[in-house]
């Protein structure tokens, strides 16, 4: 029976390393039989993992903390994005210089109000002046309204906007000080306790995959492009290029490794904005391999 790795979105460069590991046979080399299943906008990835339906999953850092706060015992193993790729995309014509300008300006901001960063903004930049509305993906409304700003992944929407000739200015959410690890590989603690060796091999294979992908994204992009017809080849390579610096680590730290301080900061922030009610044991949130 293969190990199932559940993604939280369709095959896109943000998952490049996982597909690369599959393609290059790193899983097999590590005696792992891995099946990658893609997700959609409603896929409850973390619950699937908690309920034991899948063995590994991709979630975001804040989700890990929240799950812990609600009694879900999962462990972060590999953090793809060292820098949160979430951003706020604005029309350059607005002349905004910072996130603060955006949320204190007029017009509309589209975001997922359930995401912790929005609460963080509400606290940090209170009171917001901008009118907020839900963001569901795409840039249709953004194109149609020059006074509209929106949430984005810097690896995605800004590239699309530029591709259709819009002049945009994008601010990373991380600039505000809210910077959770993102596209994090997680598993259940029970699994880690039961077969630490398997987990170690898994992380090894993933890391090897990401190394490959960062050095040359093209072959894996082709594979993912076949699985995701909605994304063009150009977007694949542009997106892969855009995410490089968010993933790549310095020479002394390994790809995907995490620090206690970062997790501590995140946990404190989430506590401060009331997304979690009780402090969590930060050292149990993750394990570096």
């Amino acid at each position, binding site marked *: 029976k293969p190990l199932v790795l559940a993604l939280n979105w369709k095959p896109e460069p943000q998952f490049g390393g996982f597909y690369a590991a599959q393609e290059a046979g790193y899983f097999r080399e590590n005696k792992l039989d891995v099946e990658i299943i893609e997700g959609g906008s409603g896929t409850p990835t973390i619950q699937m993992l908690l309920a034991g339906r899948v063995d590994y999953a991709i979630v975001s850092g804040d989700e890990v903390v*929240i799950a812990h706060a*609600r009694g879900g015992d999962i462990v972060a193993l590999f953090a793809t994005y060292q820098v949160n790729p979430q951003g706020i995309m604005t029309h350059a014509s607005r002349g905004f210089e910072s996130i603060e300008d955006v949320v204190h300006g007029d017009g509309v901001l589209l975001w997922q109000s359930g995401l912790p960063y929005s609460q963080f903004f509400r606290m940090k930049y209170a009171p917001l002046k901008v009118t907020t509305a839900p963001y*569901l993906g795409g840039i249709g409304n953004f194109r149609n309204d020059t006074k509209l700003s929106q949430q984005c992944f810097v690896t995605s929407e800004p590239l699309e906007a530029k591709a259709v000739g819009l002049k945009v200015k994008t601010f990373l959410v991380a600039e505000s000080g809210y910077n959770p690890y993102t596209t994090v590989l997680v598993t259940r603690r029970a699994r880690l306790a039961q077969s630490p060796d398997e987990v170690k091999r898994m992380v090894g294979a993933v890391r090897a995959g990401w190394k490959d992908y960062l050095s040359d994204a093209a072959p894996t992009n082709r594979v993912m492009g076949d699985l995701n017809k909605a994304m063009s080849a150009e977007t694949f390579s542009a997106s892969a290029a855009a995410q490089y610096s968010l993933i790549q680590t310095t020479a002394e730290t390994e790809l995907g490794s995490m620090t206690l301080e970062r997790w501590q900061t995140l946990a404190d922030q989430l506590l401060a904005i009331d997304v979690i009610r009780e402090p969590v044991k930060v050292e149990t949130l993750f394990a570096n391999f």
Partner: protein
Amino acid sequence: MLGALRDWIAEKLPAWIFLGGLLSVWQLVVAQEWVAAYLLPSPTQIFATTWQLWPEIWAATLSTAHSIFWGLGFSILTGVSLALLFFAIPLVRRAVLPFCIFFQTVPIIAIAPLLVIWFGFGDPTVRASAFIVSLFPILANTLTGLQETDPQLRELYRLYRPSPWQLIVKLQLPSALPYMLTGIRISAGLAVIGAIVGEFIAGGGIGSLIDAARTQQRVDLVFSGVLMSSVLALSLVFAIEVLSRLLLRGRPYLRKV
């Protein structure tokens, strides 16, 4: 008076008992951890959460109720009018009816940008969504009701050369009434979901509440929202029932002679 009350209790009692049983089993299932609480919160937890966040939840519920009222109201109006039009002019029916089903199959989320551009962020989009989703059942059922009118009665009425309006008001609508009411009942449920989906898109109300709670893994809050939407739907169905009883008071509708 007292008798009416007793009847009413006798009629509603089984539902309350069933509800009680359901909640007990549910509570047990969660308490025994047969289903994890992070998937399905216990009823007591849901009630606790609802109680705790009551001001927000109540405001959200009111806002959603408002949108449902307009969306459903408009789809009843449009649905019945369209049904009458289709019934009166079969050519129009044959031309247009197949495309009305489109309203039922199009994922609102797929046309969200269009909706937002046409109706703006906020209530109008929510109402439009509730309308779109709830139009077809009332249309289809009313049309069937009109078509199933006893041809013998139709013949009788035609003896007196009634105006089309009279034929509609005095024969077609009364005899289509059971169909219409069932259609409205179906549409009521759909209007609720339509409004909530609309709120996923345009913000506000229970939809936003559920959406936010979902991203934060607040299953209890999600279920508070679901609870309130069910309460809305049940209230609607109840209102429709009361209304239809008033309409039919003492009238043996469709009881054949």
